[in-house]
């Protein structure tokens, strides 16, 4: 079971890495924000898997906070873009 959890954490990190390649390539700001969304969902997955494999229940709370903050980042980004296009 613990091998499965370690392998799945590695798979999730591989998928985070693919998201970072998209940040590198761009081309627009919206494409880069999509990677933030990926980091939100895959990061929550990594934290939950780690909480079971390391037997640390506190990591579940960390995952909850990360899930909430990932949405705030996107909302702040689109708000700023709209302000700058109004000027």
């Amino acid at each position, binding site marked *: 079971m613990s091998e499965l959890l370690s392998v799945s954490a590695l798979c999730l990190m591989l*998928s985070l890495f693919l998201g970072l390649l998209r940040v590198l390539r761009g081309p627009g700001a919206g494409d880069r924000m999509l990677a933030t969304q990926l980091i939100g969902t895959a990061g929550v997955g990594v934290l939950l898997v780690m909480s079971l494999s390391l037997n640390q229940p506190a990591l579940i709370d960390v995952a909850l906070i990360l899930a909430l903050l*990932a949405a705030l980042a996107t909302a702040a980004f689109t708000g700023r873009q709209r302000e700058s296009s109004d000027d």
Partner: protein
Amino acid sequence: MIDAISTLLIVSGLGFYLAGSIGLLRLPDLYSRLHALTKADNLGLGLLIAGLALHAQELLIALKLVLIWLAVLAASAASAHLIAQQARCRETQS
């Protein structure tokens, strides 16, 4: 038995995660990337959480995991709409 079911759920969840990331990398424009990422990743997280919840010692922890999934669903639906709206706004302006 429970181990087999949860292994199946976790592995299929990982498959959806990888499919979403490959879609983010390979698809041609912003809207199709949004479509690949948002749906596939949330389904992947749902399956992963279902697999992990089978191993939770208490009912409370399993409920918390489901709560996290619902929070991520709401958050990523909202941010997918915001990103698409903003991209469309820019397109109509230029």
